[in-house]
């Protein structure tokens, strides 16, 4: 990596009047953006504001409709990612965009493999891959296929790759969405080191704490337009939120009012005894009562996702039994779970959640239709009503319900998935990292909605890396470590400190998987 030679005062990257339109949507409308040397610059805005589009247009994934981009004063117009990379701009796009079939090392060095005698030097590649991952505390088998690793690990690998390539500009589009606090701390340490070398970093996130922790300045977009640029230090949090939403955020959500005593007196909706699967999760006991929010907390790879996959029948348990309403039930697949009134928003929405080419409407009614069976089609009118209701309720930003869901911004896809399950009026809703990629405004809305549903008797099982979020709405927290349920906190015991304490006895930061 070479440090930049230009004087630090001159802007590193200057964007003027950048515009980009898609069929029926003006995603970017004359946006200006300036990135200086040695600066971490937050790019903020609601879901669908145009952040990812700005990044993709800047790096040549999309061809811009208008505007100029200058790197160190020289105009650039990359026609593809390859060209952007040659200009020393490294990017982590939203969602993990690596190749599951290639090894970790091949992913890290795709297109820039170390060569010897005209051939790829695989030994050197392995060695360098280990070195590149070292600062992140990731000591994994770099020859294993990337697909074997969890989303979070893949995310770190994507970051490491971009960092290793970006001698001038590093762009990170929601890199922290699936990371836990410890990983985020590591990432920030790396970002600060790069900043001290004069590299400019563009950082997109929906976690405002993170913005105030590392960013020097903030640019806010709304509906494809520039709202303004500020120094972080000069912008109080409430003002920032107002800038993003164009309005004040209503008071933060409150804890649900039902006391633990009353909840415990209810008969459990679903209960799992000695439930588990070899090589996946140790057998565990879990009761979920109507109206209750149970959260699963733990580090990366601690088995949270695998626990909820078992509960929903996505993976088949080989031990233990499940009962619903006191009746023993079989959970041989998601279909059984859906019939029992369960719903599940998976962690990897692109792979396991959305049906990309189908419309928002079809995605929303899919689970409801599947439960009704193919012989009883939901009439088109009714489908539209349901879709429109949830589009309004969750504020899904889409020109209309007929747009293929893959064209929505990441956060809006997540909301549509939530709508899919809410439409089935589930008795138990399972959410794996539910607010991942969702903006502050929508975040508050969704939490309020969840509370209302719980008040109506729905139970919720949540996996989240946001401990504050967990504390904000759950009455019971199950803590996992090394694929084992190690502690359960109830009612008044639930606090960030106690969760952390339960997690942190010994914390090997290694990928346990595969």
């Amino acid at each position, binding site marked *: 990596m070479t440090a930049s030679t230009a004087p630090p005062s001159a802007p590193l990257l200057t964007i003027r009047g950048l515009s980009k339109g898609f069929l029926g949507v003006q995603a970017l409308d004359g946006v200006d953006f300036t990135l200086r040397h040695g600066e971490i610059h937050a790019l903020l805005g609601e879901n669908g504001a145009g952040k990812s589009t700005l990044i993709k247009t800047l790096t040549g*994934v999309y061809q811009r409709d208008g505007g100029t981009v200058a790197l160190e004063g020289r105009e650039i117009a990359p026609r*593809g*990612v*390859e060209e*952007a*990379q040659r200009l020393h701009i490294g*990017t982590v*796009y939203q969602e993990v*965009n*690596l*190749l*599951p*079939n*290639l090894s970790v090392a*091949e*992913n890290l060095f*795709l*297109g820039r*493999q170390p*060569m010897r005698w005209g*051939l*790829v030097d*695989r030994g050197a590649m392995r060695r360098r891959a280990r070195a590149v991952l070292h600062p992140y505390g990731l000591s994994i*088998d770099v*020859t*294993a*296929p990337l697909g074997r690793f969890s989303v979070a690990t893949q995310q770190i690998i994507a970051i490491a790759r971009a960092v290793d390539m970006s001698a001038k500009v590093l762009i990170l589009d929601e890199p922290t969405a699936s990371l836990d606090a410890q990983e985020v701390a590591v990432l920030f340490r790396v970002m600060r080191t790069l900043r001290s070398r004069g590299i400019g970093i563009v950082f997109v996130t929906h976690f405002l704490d993170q913005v105030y922790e590392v960013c020097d300045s903030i640019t806010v977009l709304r509906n494809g337009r520039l709202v303004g640029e500020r120094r972080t230090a000069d912008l109080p949090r409430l003002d920032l939120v107002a800038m993003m939403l164009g309005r004040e955020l209503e008071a933060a959500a409150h804890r649900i009012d039902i006391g633990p005593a009353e909840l415990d007196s209810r008969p459990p909706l679903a209960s799992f005894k000695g439930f588990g699967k*070899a*090589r*996946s999760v140790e057998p565990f006991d879990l009761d979920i009562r109507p109206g209750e929010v149970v959260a699963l907390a733990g580090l990366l790879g601690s088995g949270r996702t695998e626990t909820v996959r078992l509960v929903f029948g996505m993976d088949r348990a080989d031990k233990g039994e499940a009962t619903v309403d006191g009746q023993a039930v079989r959970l041989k697949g998601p279909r059984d779970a859906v019939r029992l009134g369960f719903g599940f928003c998976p962690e990897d929405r692109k792979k396991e959640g959305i049906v990309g080419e189908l419309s928002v409407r079809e995605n929303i009614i899919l689970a409801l239709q599947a439960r009704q069976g193919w012989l009883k089609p939901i009439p088109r009118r009714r489908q539209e009503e349901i879709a429109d209701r949830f589009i309004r309720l969750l504020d899904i930003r889409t020109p209309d319900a007929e747009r293929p869901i893959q064209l929505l911004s990441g956060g809006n896809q997540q909301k549509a998935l939530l709508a899919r399950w809410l439409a089935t009026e589930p008795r138990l809703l399972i959410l794996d990292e539910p607010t991942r990629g969702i903006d502050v405004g929508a975040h508050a809305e969704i939490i309020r909605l969840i509370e209302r549903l719980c008040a109506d008797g729905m139970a919720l099982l949540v996996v989240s890396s946001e401990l504050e979020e967990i504390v904000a709405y759950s009455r019971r927290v199950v803590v996992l470590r090394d694929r084992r349920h190690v502690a359960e906190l109830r009612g008044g015991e639930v606090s960030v400190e106690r969760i952390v304490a339960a997690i942190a006895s010994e914390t090997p930061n290694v990928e346990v998987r*595969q």
Partner: protein
Amino acid sequence: MTGALQRFLPLIVTTAVLVVGFLICAAQFPNFASWRVVANLLTDNAFLGITAVGMTFVILSGGIDLSVGAVIGFTTVLLAVLIEHGGWHPVPAFAVALIAAGGFGAAMGGVIHVFQMPPFIVTLAGMFIARGLGFVLTTDSVPINHPLYGELNDMALRFDFGLKLSLPALLMLGVVVAAVVLAHWTRFGANLYALGGNRQSAELMGVPVARTTVAVYGLSGLLAGLAGIVFSLYTGAGYSLAATGVELDTITAVVIGGTQLTGGYGYVVGTFVGVLIQGLIQTYITFDGSLSSWWTKIAIGVLLFVFILLQKGLLVVWAGRGGEPAEA
């Protein structure tokens, strides 16, 4: 189980299936376990093996090439017409044929990329065109009588223990080795796997999609051209209907060899084993010699099914239930 073993498991399983199959045949027929049968397997399937290598690359990149059989046919006709009617020396004729076949493949790749058309259809049209061009050149089967053909046909590598490797067999082995290097020790190879893994991600990671697409179809065309040369050596003639249906044989070999048709997963060596398995099935049926035309077809289908089941079964047994669900 170590990571490497697990990754090569499909390959190991496929090879084991081949060996088991060969042993069964050898136990059943007296003359089966001979170097002659081994040499025949290699020589008779040389053109198929060379084509299948190209097909492996195309499939790894997430595409498919239905034109290969027709390109083989066209190449044999082109060679025959150039050498016999045009009086050319075979060597420049070979060069022209390779350039034509490679260029044809690259053109299809270009169409696929630029117009975003499905490879299945573009190469199907390519198949029509190549076959049609062959017909236009001549519908007759033209014998090639150039002395070089005789010399090349007599060329062989003889081993003391009795194995005789003909030129086509040697060419195929060379192509397989070169292809392994290309797939795993060059950037082009990595780009291929990347493209097949996920085109969109590959593009976002800076893989030159256009260049790679054109190159991989060009390569497939080139290898089909080479297979055409081998075929014309093998038969000493050019014939526009030669190698009909070879595209399906090739795809079958590739898939038996453990490559995923969706792209991104598989090995060239697996394809080589797949070709041999197919050859073994045919040899078995010929040695048996009692099957009528229809029982032959049924037997091929059943054996194909058995091989795929064996492969899947062994994978499940060895990898355990937690293993990846490999698709045969």
